[in-house]
């Protein structure tokens, strides 16, 4: 019996799930929203997404190869592709493509690789890229293409300026509204989120805490004065609520461990988002809320004990 036997400590069995597989699942979950976006905004969507993904992967490879010394192998785990798609989802479909490349550079180069790459970044890279662009290029970032011949202002911006007369919840749900290219399709995003839950890529705590606290907070105000404040359903179906709650806040590296931390983290995001939406300078606050709560993750992780 001449067999070379492998000797290793237990366990000898491993789950088939890998980092690459998880990222692949996230990409699958984002497909429905991408499809709806193409339906609503046209093929610009694909161009922006392709450029974002391509440049994120290139910057990941360059940083890995020349700065981190991992030979650029980390592109294989598909996390840069996910960041690229999520960044694109946070941009208007008519944004100049050079801004997409710049945003990708900030997302991957500054938001992720400077900290050492996947798993070590404290802030959601796609949101770092988006917020940089929003602050540095506010005009390009808030000029949205018209949908169905209606003006390019987002429902949240209209609500803030008092220019919103009637709310068509159906189009809010289906995605026929103005906004960043990936955030509009609330129903498709929800579908993708359910897929991630079913595949156990994410757990329910963060999304439910984000959306639940947003709904609760806005519901209280709405009951007090429905003439001034929008309904909770409006808040859940507009802006980055769905995209943020299901795909951005649930990012592993930048969210707390365990269910208790997830609830605290999600509730913080929901409350800050509504505060910014109602009393802040910006019509939407999801990105800022997530980034603010990202910074508290190390602290929240201590709550477990």
């Amino acid at each position, binding site marked *: *019996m001449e*067999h070379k*036997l*492998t*000797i*290793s*400590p*237990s*366990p*000898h*069995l*491993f*789950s088939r*799930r*890998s*980092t690459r*597989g*998880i990222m692949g699942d996230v990409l699958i979950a984002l497909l429905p929203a991408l499809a709806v976006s193409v339906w609503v905004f046209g093929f610009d969507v694909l161009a922006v997404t392709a450029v974002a993904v391509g440049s994120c992967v290139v910057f990941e490879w360059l940083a890995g190869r020349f700065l981190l010394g991992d030979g650029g192998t*980390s592109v294989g*785990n598909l*996390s840069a592709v996910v960041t690229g798609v999520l960044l694109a989802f946070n941009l208007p479909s008519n944004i100049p493509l050079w801004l997409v490349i710049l945003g990708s550079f900030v997302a991957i180069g500054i938001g992720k690789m400077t900290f050492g*790459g*996947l*798993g*070590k970044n404290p802030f959601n890279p796609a949101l770092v890229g988006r917020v940089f662009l929003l602050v540095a290029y506010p005009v390009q970032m808030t000029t949205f293409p018209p949908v169905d011949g209606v003006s390019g202002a987002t429902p949240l911006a209209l609500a803030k300026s008092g220019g919103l007369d009637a709310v068509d919840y159906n189009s809010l749900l289906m995605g026929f509204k103005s906004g960043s290219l990936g955030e509009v399709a609330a129903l498709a995003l929800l579908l993708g989120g359910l897929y991630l839950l079913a595949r156990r890529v994410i*757990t329910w705590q963060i999304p439910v805490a984000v959306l639940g606290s947003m709904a609760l907070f806005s519901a209280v105000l709405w009951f007090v004065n429905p003439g001034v404040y929008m309904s909770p359903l409006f808040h859940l179906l507009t802006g980055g609520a769905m995209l943020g709650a299901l795909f951005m806040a649930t990012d*592993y*590296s930048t969210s707390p*461990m*365990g*269910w208790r931390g997830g609830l605290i983290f999600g509730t913080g995001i929901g409350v800050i988002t509504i505060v910014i939406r109602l009393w802040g300078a910006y019509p939407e606050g999801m990105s800022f809320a997530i980034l603010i709560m990202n910074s508290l993750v190390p602290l929240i992780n201590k709550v*477990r004990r």
Partner: protein
Amino acid sequence: MKTFPRGGVHPPENKLSAGVPVEVLPVPGTVVVPLSQHLGAPAEAVVAKGDRVLVGQLLGKAAGFVSAPVHSPVSGTVAGVDMVANGSGIKGLSVTISVEGDEWMPQIDRTDRVGYDCQMSAEEIVKKIADAGIVGMGGATFPTSVKLTPPQGKKAEMLIINGVECEPFLTSDHRVMLEHTAEVLVGVGLLARALGVEKTFVGVENNKPDAIDVLRKVYGNILRELPPMEIVPLKVKYPQGGEKQLITAITGRTVPSGGLPIDVGCVVQNVGTAFAVYEAVMKNKPLVERVVTVTGAVERPANFLVRIGTPVSALLDAVGGLPEDCGKVIGGGPMMGRAMSNLDAPVTKGTSGILVLDRRTAVRCAESDCIKCGKCLTVCPMGLEPYLLAPLVQKQRWDEVETHRVMDCIECGCCSYTCPAKIPLLDWIRLGKAEVGKIIRSRLNR
């Protein structure tokens, strides 16, 4: 359905040999019987080269309280008492016997007739169990008689019998429950009497409905002969059969950190142990053979009744030999078993299975960076934080490793199993346990 409250995983069950009845493996030409097949002090040899021995004859006597005697599993001539390598290649004092015939000690009852009637006192039963060399047969191999003697001031309230067999692939306990139901139940009754407990539970994972049914049926038939007991189906989840997990699943009690089951009034024994106790008390038969599952990437997965001391290679030959692309041979199950380097090593009292993995399964995947997914933390049945412990061990920050409760780790392997980045978390945690254990001991000695 009852289960433990926290963590756990559900690997593919792969109970390939569940439907294969136990076959008696022929006695080999030579057996090697290690004097240390249990936790505690090795037995002291009472035979020398050239002695004639019978099946069941004492080879080594227990050396102290936490120890167990060793008996001859065959009849023949002692060829030597010397150092022989075990499955991991580590040498230990062992008795090698050349087999001649199959002559048993005359007082051993070898009939199949099930005995129910036992007039022995609790002390007599414990003595009988100790003299028969019975140890925990789930793999822990802690001397059973010691567990049946609670320390001063502690009282056992309930007996829990572990018929969970939560390790994938293994089916030896399952077959024993199916084929020796009455004997197992009588053995459970004897254990309950030895402990003087009021309540007895038999926990069986729900992937063995046939075993649950037959245990309930036979228990109903022989009710009058037995103390009251309850057969408890448990959710299929690993490590349901971990001692602490099983106690919490069945009683709702939690063994305190650093404590023992007896601290919450519980004693846990394996079904295989209960069967051995039956044979020792009712049949005068010391522990000289056991049921071993031989499974995995082999032609004909099977369950064998094997004499202790039989070389593992003989078991592998009996299922068609090692396959061409064999990558790993494991003594025990895939989650907690030990990879073997020496296939000439003997089957011992704690060998519940031999598992063969092909080359692809045997090799670990390349490790990548932690993505902070937190899966290790949600699957840990002890509520530890493996993702945090591993880097702390790497940085040798032993104080923090200790305060993060590294010593509570039961080494079930759920963290390493589940990690998508394939980080060998348990390897690091084991290293941490060893170091922190040393530090704690030196602190106690000071």
